[in-house]
């Protein structure tokens, strides 16, 4: 599955469109990670636990989107966009969407 956030796959031609596909995950803060986070909050610096959480949920969202595209028979997703929103206090959503297409 090829992914791109440009309007097409560079150097290839799109032969069929299948419409918008999307995937999302909601992540919440984590008691163990939160302990470290509150410590880091004094010293400053990277919150590694949360960076991991962010990239895991991002990969999971991408996986859900490509799964949906595969079911439609597409072999690529173009114009991929990420969007984040806070669902409730202490929880945030990562939403990824794009257009499922077939490239030659």
């Amino acid at each position, binding site marked *: 599955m090829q992914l791109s956030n440009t309007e097409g796959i*560079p150097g290839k031609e799109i032969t069929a469109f299948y419409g918008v596909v999307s995937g999302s995950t909601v992540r919440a803060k984590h008691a163990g990670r939160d302990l470290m986070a509150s410590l880091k909050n004094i010293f400053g610096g990277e919150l590694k636990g949360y960076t991991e959480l962010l990239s895991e949920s991002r990969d999971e969202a991408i996986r859900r989107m490509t799964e949906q595209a595969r079911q439609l028979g597409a072999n690529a997703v173009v114009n*991929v966009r990420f969007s984040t929103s806070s669902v409730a206090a202490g929880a945030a959503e*990562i939403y990824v969407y794009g257009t499922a297409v077939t490239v030659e």
Partner: protein
Amino acid sequence: MDQLIIFALLLSLGYFFGRSAEKRHYASIQQREQDFINMPTTAGKYVLGENTTVTKSHLVTGSVVISVDYFKRILASLRSFFGGNVRSYETLVDRARREAVLRMKESCPDADQIINIRLETSSIYKGQGKQIGSVEVLAYGTAVYLAP
């Protein structure tokens, strides 16, 4: 009295550790930006330069979560009283964005360019009473490999 001592302790811990952490981080960002100077990035849709024959392309992402230290948080809350630019948070988001872009570049060291870069900022603590001053940045773009 005890509370005052704890407050002063937290403040000085934040000041010294936060400052050295930020200094080290900026040094590492500048070093790595130099290392990746040959991989141009653009927010535009098209491949830069004369040679635009693309052999391969894929989506690349990079993300980071950075927290601000105690001293700067107090500074920022003072600033929100008087108004003006909150400098202590400016460096926080600057560091986070540059770090996210660098991680994105590091995930594809063989690529020639990264086009259509987008940056998304979020916070898990948004809308919560007890705010933790942290920022999450997600950078993404399309890595392209050009024909030699």
